[in-house]
């Protein structure tokens, strides 16, 4: 598919295009961005778009919004290859790949119900991040989250 045809949906004036999202993760990206039922700006989402590099990918485009560090970190956990394209005045003004942090804090809930991070104690969850594939190891109880990371995002 040519960029021409993709863009025909409706070009963004200012905002962010999250490209090369792991196919199937677009909905989770929207969740991370807090896009639920009612959202005031234009958001478009494409799923299973043919891609030379990935076979298939998802794309999310969101108007009038630049992402925060924490949102980028969360996206990196569920789709480490995603690229962020900052659109200003219809043009790609900046472009970078999300980057997996080495440690994520207060971002993911530990899967172990008996973990100290899941109690009323004044500690927040903390995980060490391993790449290829993404694995999260709780520093408190050492349980590892490898699957369905999106479901455990706080």
């Amino acid at each position, binding site marked *: 598919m040519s960029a021409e045809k993709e863009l025909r949906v409706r070009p963004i004036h200012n905002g962010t295009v999250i490209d090369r999202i792991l196919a199937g993760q677009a909905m989770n990206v929207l969740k991370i961005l807090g896009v639920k039922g009612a959202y005031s700006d234009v958001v478009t989402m494409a799923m299973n778009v043919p891609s030379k590099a990935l076979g298939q990918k998802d794309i999310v485009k969101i108007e009038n919004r630049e992402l925060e560090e924490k949102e980028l970190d969360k996206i990196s956990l569920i789709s480490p290859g995603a690229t962020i394209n900052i659109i200003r005045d219809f043009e790609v003004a900046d472009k970078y790949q999300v980057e997996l942090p080495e440690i994520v804090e207060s971002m993911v809930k530990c899967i172990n119900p008996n973990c100290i991070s899941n109690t009323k104690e004044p500690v927040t969850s903390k995980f060490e991040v391993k790449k290829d594939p993404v694995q999260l190891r709780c520093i408190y109880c*050492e349980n590892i989250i490898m699957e369905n990371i999106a479901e455990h995002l706080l």
Partner: protein
Amino acid sequence: MRFERRHIISMKDFTREEIDYILDRAAKLEPLARGGRSDLLAGKILALLFYEPSTRTRMSFETAMYRLGGNVLNLGSKEATSIVKGETLADMIRVVSTYSDAIVQRHPSEGSALMAAEFSLVPIINGGDGAGHHPTQTLLDLYTIRKESHLDNLDIAIVGDLKYGRTVHSLTYALSLYGANITLVSPPQLKVPDQIKADLKARGARVRETENLEEILDSIDVLYMTRIQKERFPDPTEYKKVAGAYKITTEYLRNVRDSMIIMHPLPRLYEIDSSVDTSSHARYFEQSFYGVPIRMALLTIVMGVEV
């Protein structure tokens, strides 16, 4: 070696050299542990924060402290303390660490000891954090093996509940530092979790698995038995079968190496028949005694006292 004021949370925090250092110090203190009194820790206070029942761990820490001339502060019963009022562990640690020179803690949540270390002004010694770690048990196990058998070129079988048993995971990890040949013996439903196996292999441990205890009995130096708990089996007949298959009796021991020793973290249920207690192989009571010199060693180390 820098140990003073260091927390003792998990065996993974130790190098082999550090473990050897602790075992050496325990050996020095063992005569004192057998009966005697010194003032190495005179004026020092150890706080015992046990949120879960414990006999051996708590009492051996108390004994260790008394033998070294120190004092012990006990949390007391749940009802008598502010735990019932819902005070957090974090607050408790902040307060108690201003009353004491070190804290031994047992708490039901995994990771509670690490969290406690974040809030404490004094060293935390983990006496068990749920299904997590119990490093002082592992250290006393290693001490027993070194003393009653040998740590180099060791052939050891670890038997029983290898899935939930917290002592087993830290023991296998520590043994891998010594290049031991480890045979894990368990029924299929109680095998060591894949994650832990992968972790051990990545650390170069030599591990194999079997369900058949008899087949390997004559080729090991140490037989480490653990409890198999009934609650793990939904089907009572299944439990009986498994419990029967891993029960050590004197008949079982006919073809074992003369020097083979039997260990158990205690309390035992039916895994070791009482007829075995008087055999030359039994070491489980010595093992529980060795908890005293090991804990004496740890206390002097974290409190920064030279021996």
